[in-house]
């Protein structure tokens, strides 16, 4: 049962993820950091939402709270109406650091397979999911290679394949393309858009790159500097079919970028 507090999003879809006044204070002996100061937003079922924020804004902290890896010190996260207290089955994560999120002692196939095996899925079904996930990311013939035998972009594709083979309702990505070169990055961006269309999965995509957020998302949330709150929530009214050159040279793209950029600059000034 989905709670009705924030029933519809900008797109008029039912709420899938509800982030409600999430606070996170890191405290250790000599220092307390208020990383999140009451973050509040919702994501509709099937939406593609991007979150932008400056470095150190608490983006990773926010995703850890959303994915149940970290208990927030205040507020609640609800997925499909249920409070998230541990990593939910309906969510898959792709980390920024691809080189450290794949198991180097397993082949590509075994990496994709392991979460399914852990979930107790039958072998036949696992085989099908692995081969379709690897085909979806364009890696049909490297199944028996080890991750460290692949390029950075290919490793990140493996991480994406593992996430989509898991059949999540929501795919959460933390600056997944920050460490790859520009061309690979453009390819991976288009790949994620395609997968979103094809699989109908909800995507929550974190980046520090404003252009990337506008190019990918249906909605962009801008975070302030810490203590972080959602400062702006912009609907991206660009045509649904996007391509790297055409979309980025639209005048509307420039306007959106200007708007977001201004917001983020203002956030810097007010906080610092």
């Amino acid at each position, binding site marked *: 049962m989905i709670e009705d507090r924030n029933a519809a999003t900008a797109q008029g879809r039912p709420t899938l993820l509800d982030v409600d006044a999430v606070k996170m204070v890191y405290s250790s002996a000599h220092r307390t950091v208020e990383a999140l100061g009451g973050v509040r937003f919702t994501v509709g079922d099937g939406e593609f939402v991007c979150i932008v924020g400056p470095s150190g804004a608490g983006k990773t902290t926010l995703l*850890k709270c959303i994915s149940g*890896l970290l208990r927030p010190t205040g507020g609640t996260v609800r997925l499909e109406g249920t409070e998230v207290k541990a*990593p939910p089955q309906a969510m898959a994560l792709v980390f920024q650091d691809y080189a450290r*999120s794949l198991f180097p002692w397993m082949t590509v196939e075994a990496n994709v397979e392991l979460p399914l095996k852990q979930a107790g899925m039958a072998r036949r079904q696992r085989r099908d999911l692995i081969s379709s996930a690897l085909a979806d990311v364009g890696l049909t013939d490297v199944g028996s290679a080890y991750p*460290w035998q692949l390029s950075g972009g290919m490793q990140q594709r493996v991480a994406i394949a*593992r996430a989509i083979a898991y059949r999540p309702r929501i795919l959460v990505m933390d600056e997944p393309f920050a460490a790859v070169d520009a061309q690979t990055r453009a390819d991976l961006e288009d790949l994620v858009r395609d997968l979103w269309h094809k699989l109908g999965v909800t995507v929550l995509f974190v980046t520090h790159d404003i252009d990337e957020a506008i190019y990918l998302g249906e909605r962009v949330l801008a975070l302030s500097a810490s203590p972080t709150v959602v400062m702006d929530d912009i609907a991206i009214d660009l045509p649904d079919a996007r391509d790297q050159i055409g979309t980025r040279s639209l005048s509307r793209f420039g306007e959106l970028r200007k708007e977001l950029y201004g917001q983020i600059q203002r956030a810097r000034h007010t906080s610092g």
Partner: protein
Amino acid sequence: MRVLSRFLYAVALPCLLALGWWFASRGSQNFFFPPLSGILSAFADVWFSAKIVEDVLPSVLRLASGYLIAAGMGLALGVPIGLSTRLRAYVEPVLEFLRAIPPPVLVPILILFAGIGTTMKLMVIVSGCLWPVLLNTIEGVRGLDETLGATTRAYRFTRRGRLVHFILPGAAPLIFAGLRQSLSIGIILMVISEMFAASNGIGFTIVQFQRSFAIPEMWSGIILLGLVGFIFASVLGFVERRVLHWYFGLRAAERNDT
């Protein structure tokens, strides 16, 4: 072809050394350094006999079981200690203290408690072999990658799955480093435990020969010890290459990158 050349590389130096020893000791009149030819014929006479079953086998079995017990204990204790910061703070000073005690000094004490039988000898071997495995396992588990750990949680791995697919393989490079150190300690302690109080074993036999001035026979026992150590190390190396082949590949890939 590559296997053959690797083999030739591996045996070249030992052959040279043996040849050097052979010619340097040929016709030696020194009572304590007999000719290698004499040692080798003593080797055949002494060891290709009932001694294989009566002395070599017990030593090898004690070494193998002591070593395996120590390895098992090192893993069973090291994993939980490595995983818990609190537990580590609690036990680490004690471990450092215990590790600093040289195991041979425990022999007289262990004889008091456990007598002079197999139990005592196993305890001596375990008390020395445990530390390298234990401390390296702790270090290996502690150094596990956080992002990988988060991955296992995000994908809801079971406890067993985390242990088998993440903790043990991730710590394996250091665990094997510990296993290698333990092996050389184990061989030393096997001999020492047999020198104090024993009625059989390679160490015991060597001491007997030395006391009765059977010098070529004593030398043949030393060569046998070297061979036993070599065989154990080869088996360990074989297992290591199979378990850690990903690690050697990864390291080679990293070297080529930079």
